[in-house]
């Protein structure tokens, strides 16, 4: 059973530009949706980053983010994430998810694919005390579909070292850093795809992704089960229990297997 307070989701089924996002950046490539690859029957995000694109090139989706009013604790997940080429240089980045501050256009944290020792690796790129730190690990493969989820938790107060950044792949924690003083500014901008990326010297890099979800809690791989959304009127952040298990407070969505279930809310709440 998966339960989360959903902030934003996009399955890229709307093929009208910019596909439900604030916009797309095609400075160094083409951004579209496609049903051609890697699977049919459903549209997915599809990005082409030009061959020879230099580090810091842009081809991807972006949107404003206002899910958390102050310091962000945000989870971003996409299914069927895949790339088909390595970046040109060692430690070159092919970002999947990113949290930014606008209008200053500064990245707070991102994650994706990189190249270490000539082979593909995962990366976690985060701020700590005003410095960017690059963390790598795992052994992803080209032309392979992954569920990629990024957690960015900004430090709770200025100077307090309690920020964190985590990367899950297919539901497994791959990279983690805690005790961060990552930034005091508000995350208000999310990017998806090959944004601030480095191209391949000779071939375009193709990126695929789908089932994008932003939430206030860990999302995990898509289960395929139906989602039950529980709201309260007025909205009171009421505790919700499904089959006797506390799942969180309204508004909340829970993915549970088809069938009969018991949903309970608190009979009285004080606010």
């Amino acid at each position, binding site marked *: 059973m998966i339960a989360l307070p959903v902030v934003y989701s996009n399955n890229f089924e709307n093929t009208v530009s910019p596909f439900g996002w604030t916009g797309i950046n095609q400075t160094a490539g083409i951004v579209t949706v496609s049903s051609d690859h890697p699977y049919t029957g459903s549209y997915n995000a599809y990005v082409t980053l030009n061959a020879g694109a230099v580090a810091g090139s842009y081809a991807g989706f972006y949107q404003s983010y206002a899910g958390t009013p102050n310091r962000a604790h945000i989870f971003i997940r996409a299914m069927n994430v895949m790339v088909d080429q390595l970046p040109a240089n060692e430690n070159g980045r092919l970002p999947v998810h990113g949290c930014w501050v606008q209008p200053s256009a500064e990245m707070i944290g991102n994650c994706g694919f990189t190249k270490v020792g000539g082979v593909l690796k995962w990366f976690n790129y985060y701020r700590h005390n005003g410095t960017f730190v690059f963390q790598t690990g795992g052994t992803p493969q080209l032309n392979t579909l992954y569920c990629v989820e990024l957690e960015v938790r900004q430090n709770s107060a200025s100077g307090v070292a309690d920020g964190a950044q985590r990367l899950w792949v297919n539901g497994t924690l791959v990279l983690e850093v805690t005790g961060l003083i990552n930034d005091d500014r508000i995350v208000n901008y999310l990017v998806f795809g090959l944004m601030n990326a480095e191209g391949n010297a000779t071939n375009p890099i193709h990126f695929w992704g789908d089932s994008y979800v932003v939430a206030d809690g860990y999302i995990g791989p898509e289960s395929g089960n139906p989602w*039950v959304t529980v709201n*309260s009127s007025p909205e*009171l952040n*009421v505790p919700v229990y499904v089959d006797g298990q506390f799942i969180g407070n309204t508004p909340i969505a829970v993915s549970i297997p088809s*069938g*009969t*279930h018991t949903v309970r*809310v608190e009979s009285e709440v*004080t606010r």
Partner: protein
Amino acid sequence: MVKYSFVKWEDNSTNPSRSITVVADMTIIASYSLVIHKVMFQSQPVSVQATINGQPISAGQSVDIPEGTTITVVVPGEVSV
């Protein structure tokens, strides 16, 4: 801090625990209302005017107050009859 009490679900069922049959994505809504109490003002042995939260009230009258609310009652220090 005020108290709210569950009233009903969107299907008009009134038990905060309900059974649902899930076959596809669905949304359910729990409705709540403020828990209200009547506060009646009385005075003895004479009938006086007072205020509750600045609003005049006479002996024998009542006002609706949400549970959990702090109220201020002011009565006259002296009365002449």
